[in-house]
């Protein structure tokens, strides 16, 4: 090793000690820089994704082909095993800055394979016959697993899947407690909206648009179901959607604005068809609806401009 290289290494060690930089962090930077410098980065990525998809597709196909020849224990092992390994690898990669980005993919894989494996286990070893109860137990356990891991590692993907499993378990619990479908929709919809609103204020805000979308859709759909059944009072849906549009500006969510605007447009279609289609003729009703749509979309764009773009 020549003298200049030795000097450089000494300098690196001094700087690392001075700024408390670990060997992993230096390694991660070198790997990331070398990736940035590579030409055809998109091609590498694309081929990487394709390769991954082929491997999973091939493994899935192979499993399906030999499924009937497998024993119960092997079936559980082949479905649950890769899931738990992906989950453990996900945790390990979070702790290693060089592979941090791989953790999301690994957690996503485990979120599919873990429930599959647990359902296979119940199918092979349990003869209760109550599939809904089995689903509630599986999703409940997974919600705990993902949310507890999230509380330790603070990874957004863990929160995303953990909350998804939580709602799956909760929805079944509500169903089994004979909560009417409309109230399941409103209760879960509001709960998800409030969660999205809170998450939006944290560093995990990347998942809030998805939950605003699901929560907003669920809430407005269930509200329409209730109001539609009350004869003559279905006009009450109008203030609900307008309130949601206003709320979307207040919470600064373009996703919620989109959902509530489409919900309002859909409702106007329903309303004109219900009350005006046979009065002065359908074509006139369509013209009125057209003007309303233009007016609402212009208003929605104005409201959208009030919402700042998020990083």
């Amino acid at each position: 090793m020549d003298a200049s290289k030795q000097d450089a290494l000494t300098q690196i060690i001094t700087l690392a000690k001075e700024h408390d930089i670990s060997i992993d962090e230096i390694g991660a930077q070198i790997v990331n820089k070398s990736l940035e410098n590579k030409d055809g980065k998109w091609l590498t990525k694309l081929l990487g994704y394709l390769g991954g998809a082929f491997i999973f597709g091939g493994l899935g196909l192979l499993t399906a082909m030999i499924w009937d020849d497998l024993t119960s224990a092997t079936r559980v092992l082949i479905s649950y095993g890769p899931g738990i390994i992906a989950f453990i690898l996900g945790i390990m990669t979070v702790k290693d800055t060089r592979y941090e980005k791989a953790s999301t993919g690994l957690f996503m894989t485990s979120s599919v394979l873990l429930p599959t494996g647990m359902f296979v286990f119940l199918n092979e070893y349990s003869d209760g016959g109550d599939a809904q109860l089995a689903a509630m137990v599986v999703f409940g356990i997974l919600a705990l697993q993902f949310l507890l891991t999230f509380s330790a590692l603070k990874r957004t993907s863990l929160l995303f899947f953990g909350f998804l499993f939580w709602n799956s378990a909760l929805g079944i619990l509500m169903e089994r407690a004979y909560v009417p479908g409309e109230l399941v929709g409103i209760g879960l919809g509001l709960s998800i909206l409030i969660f999205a609103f809170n998450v939006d204020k944290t560093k995990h805000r990347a998942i809030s648009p998805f939950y605003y979308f699901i929560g907003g859709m669920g809430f407005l759909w269930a509200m329409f179901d209730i109001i539609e059944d009350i004869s003559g009072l279905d006009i009450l849906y109008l203030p609900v959607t307008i309130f949601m549009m206003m709320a979307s500006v207040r919470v600064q969510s373009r996703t919620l604005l989109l959902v509530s605007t489409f919900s309002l447009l859909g409702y106007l279609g329903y309303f004109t068809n219900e009350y005006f289609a046979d009065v002065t003729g359908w074509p006139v009703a369509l013209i009125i609806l057209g003007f309303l749509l233009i007016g609402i979309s212009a208003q929605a764009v104005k409201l959208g401009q009030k919402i700042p773009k998020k990083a």
Partner: protein
Amino acid sequence: MKAFLKENSVLIAGITLPLILTAIFFALTQMQIKNVTPPNHSILYATNNNYNHYYKVIIKDEHAYLSIVPLPKNSHHRNYKLPDVYLFDPRSGENKQIQLPVKEQNKERQEILIDELKNIKFSAHAQSPDGFTFTSNYKRNSNLMTEMFGGGYRSRYSYVLKKGNGTIEVPNAARYNTQFIAWTL
């Protein structure tokens, strides 16, 4: 802890809202079940009986018979399976499967008295003498949330004995495949 609760009160309220709804409806359902006095009459019903034009359980002169109706040669109905017939006693909760007489297919119409039920009198009237009816508790109230997170509507695909607001669930009564036969007298 107090500071955490105060800081996250909205989130906690949002997360607990569905749980509160669950608790309320669970309590209401339990109260409803406790408040119903079960009917004094057992019910005879059949399952696994879809499109069965060959075997039927009928009531004739207050007794239960297995009716066998030969099908015409060109008939497209080909369900030759015996239905599962149950006698459900809502007071004890006992749900007894009834053995039906097995007969060779015959060209002639037959009505065979069901031996296990020969000492019981039945009424094919839809309503029991004390006012209960055998009805589906299915309600078409699905929406995005129930479809995504509902897990398949176990509770809504069943039959109940209903009087006013009170209901008693009938065991083994699948939504699309169950038929009322008669009440005991």
